[in-house]
């Protein structure tokens, strides 16, 4: 059988961002994959070394548009640990709420894209319609839809006050209603199952040894989630990771779908339990020494490392994003599948290329 090599991407209808996969096929079957990255590099880590450390919050937010709040939270918690300050309890709860709202809107966006990738257009529209409720909630509470700029070193910059709280509760109720209509379609529909079950299998042992993170790891049966480490207010919200044992694209989809439900509950719980108090404390010194932190993004575990020398600028900021750890697993999932399944399997790791290349 003759082998044909052709590019998939960088411009492809299912890829929200530019990555190229060079696929080698025999007939309709993929036998080899080679990823080509580097289309989205922006030099953010280098830019972070030039900025005063407090400006980097806004820079870090721009690593990824979808999980911008969590990037800012990660950087702020890292610098807080290096400058030896602690965010006040109310700020921690607010951070948790906004992180979870970001997670919901990221997962809803992804669920829509997945439905779009196998041609289920009406489901795609409904996911994005539901997501709009979350974006409105974010804009109402923080002032911006996507890049919130509300996290700051030492706390947060705005509050969800008692007037706004019932409105957020109402929005969450409205979202839950929309979600209830979508959930059974993803979970049980014949079309969805036909395109996802048994596709892109990643066995449990390999998921661990390849170092995958996030829903890819949890979809292969590992109960590991960086939120279990208890940063922000997660230690007070009885958080339990969502795990599925299917090891295929369907299991990964179910992890994300169930996480949306869980996140809604976490938002409501955090809103109810939020203590009163101040929103931020001021750092009295410059970051010094080294620091490392792990937080959970919608796509998996994010690791940030920084080294400071007691001046206003950091010496080094290193960001390891979740898609970076999940691409090796993708290269294992693709060989053996049909060309028509490549978009669905590629999407199943929820690739965020702008994050990966920074």
């Amino acid at each position, binding site marked *: 059988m003759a082998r044909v090599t052709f590019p998939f991407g960088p411009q492809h209808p299912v890829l929200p961002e530019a990555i190229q996969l060079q696929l080698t096929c025999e007939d309709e079957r993929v036998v080899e994959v080679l990823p080509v990255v580097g289309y989205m590099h922006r030099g953010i880590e280098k830019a972070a070394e030039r*900025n005063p450390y*407090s*400006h980097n919050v806004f820079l870090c937010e721009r690593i990824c548009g979808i999980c911008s709040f969590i990037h800012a939270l990660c950087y702020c918690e890292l610098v807080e640990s290096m400058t030896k300050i602690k965010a006040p309890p109310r700020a921690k709860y607010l951070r948790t709420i906004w992180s979870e709202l970001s997670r919901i809107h990221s997962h809803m966006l992804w669920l829509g894209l997945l439905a779009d990738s196998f041609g289920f257009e009406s489901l795609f529209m409904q996911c994005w319609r539901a997501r*709009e409720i979350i974006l409105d909630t974010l804009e109402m509470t*923080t002032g911006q839809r996507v890049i919130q*700029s509300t996290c700051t070193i030492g706390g947060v910059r705005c509050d969800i006050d008692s007037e706004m709280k019932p409105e957020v509760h109402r929005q969450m109720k409205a979202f839950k209603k929309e979600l209830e*209509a979508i959930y059974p*379609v993803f979970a049980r529909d*014949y079309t969805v199952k036909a395109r996802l079950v048994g596709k892109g299998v990643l066995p449990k042992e390999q998921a661990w040894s390849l170092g995958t993170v996030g829903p890819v790891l949890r979809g292969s049966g590992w109960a590991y989630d960086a939120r279990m480490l208890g940063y922000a207010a997660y230690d007070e919200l009885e958080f339990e990771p969502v795990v599925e044992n299917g090891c295929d694209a369907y299991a990964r989809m179910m992890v994300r779908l169930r996480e949306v439900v869980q996140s809604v509950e976490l938002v409501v719980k955090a809103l109810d339990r939020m203590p009163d108090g101040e929103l931020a404390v001021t750092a009295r010194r410059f970051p010094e020494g080294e620091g490392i932190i792990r937080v959970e993004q919608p796509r998996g575990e994010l690791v940030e490392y920084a080294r400071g020398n007691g001046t206003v600028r950091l010496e080094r900021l290193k960001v390891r994003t979740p898609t970076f750890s999940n691409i090796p697993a993708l290269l294992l999932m693709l060989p053996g599948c049909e060309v028509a399944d490549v978009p669905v399997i590629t999407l199943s790791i929820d690739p965020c290329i702008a994050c990966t290349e920074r």
Partner: protein
Amino acid sequence: MPLMSGNLIKNLFAGPVTRPYPVAKRRSFPRARAQLLYNPTGCTYCGICANICPANAIQMKEDRESLRINRTYDSFACIYCARCIEFCPNGALKMGVEHLEPTDRKAVMRTAGRA
């Protein structure tokens, strides 16, 4: 598909979720950060906003010859973080909630003050 039928029937009778944009606009949220409003008469050209702006959207330059300070604000570089508003000691800056119209031309706002 049968699982979708309930949703489909509901959607059939529901109105559209989108708006005919320039005709009908969404109501802005009171907290929305959409425009940076600047009042030059209240400004003392202290330069704090230019120092703390993370996007370098505000720049201050001294003109030694005419003994004036030139302040420029580039709304296209601005990320609408509202930091300058927090730090301005004279309340010369304010956030507007109405989003700017799309444009095809970039311009910066220049003011000068203090002899």
